[in-house]
């Protein structure tokens, strides 16, 4: 999964307007993974770790792998390619493991309202 995310970031390259925020949904069936990726992307506050220690460790590891690409701000090269990685997980069939990656550019703005 980490390789998949890094490949996604490398393919998006400068077009995604890095440093990006990365929302990842993993598990469920793919429809749920996509919704989880959006929920992960809009996690509030941005940069806060998952309450699940194993998932939080995964977030730290993916962030380091993405920042090791050297893509950097605007894709011009640098140490910060992603500002934060948020992962939301859900149980899944062992043979499936869908993963959805949702990116936002460096102008990542999140607001929270109660309806």
């Amino acid at each position: 999964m980490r390789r998949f995310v890094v490949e996604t970031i490398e393919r998006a390259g400068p077009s995604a307007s890095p440093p990006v925020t990365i929302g990842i949904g993993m598990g469920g069936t793919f429809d749920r993974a996509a919704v989880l990726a959006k929920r992960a992307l809009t996690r509030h506050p941005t940069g806060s770790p998952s309450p699940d220690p194993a998932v939080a460790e995964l977030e730290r590891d993916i962030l380091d792998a993405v920042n090791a690409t050297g893509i950097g701000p605007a894709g011009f090269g640098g140490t910060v390619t992603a500002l934060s990685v948020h992962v939301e997980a859900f149980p899944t069939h062992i043979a499936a493991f869908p993963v959805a990656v949702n990116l936002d550019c460096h102008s990542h703005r999140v607001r929270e309202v109660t309806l």
Partner: protein
Amino acid sequence: MSPRPLSLPLDDAVLPDLRSGDSVLLSGEMLTARDAAHARFAAAIRAGEELPVDVDGATICFVGPTPARPGHPIGSAGPTTASRCDPYSPLLVERGLRGMVGKGRRSEEVKSSMREHGCVYLGAVEGTAALLSQCVTAAEVVAYEDLGTEAVRRIVVRDFPVLVVNDLHGGDLYDEGPARWRRSR
């Protein structure tokens, strides 16, 4: 290194001096056009019609600005992803286009056309549209007004900051920058 001031239209003589990674401040006239306007340019060229603007020697900025507030020449004006214009850019480069301003990678076809005909691709920093618009001192629609924000505009800029991404010598900042900073883990 302090940025190099460059006047627009770009002088053919300075183009070979520019190297990927150079920081440049543009001053003078540019055209704005995004994918919708480029599609019309291409249709006009295929139909053998004259283009509504002269691209020979020109620099095109890939931007669709927001409406101007009263008393301002232009609204928020940030670069869009240049690959949207990749299918059309070589047609304009062949006709003398000297510069393009946008963000994101160009196709191999665009890059080889730029090297062959002498055109540079300059990267503006995305997400800084409000700041960049302060470098625009005048703007007027010159073609395809019905396209709204995607209409072709002639804008006048002063000290508009860009980095050289693709130069005439095969340099590509999107390869060289990350290669310099990549680390193993």
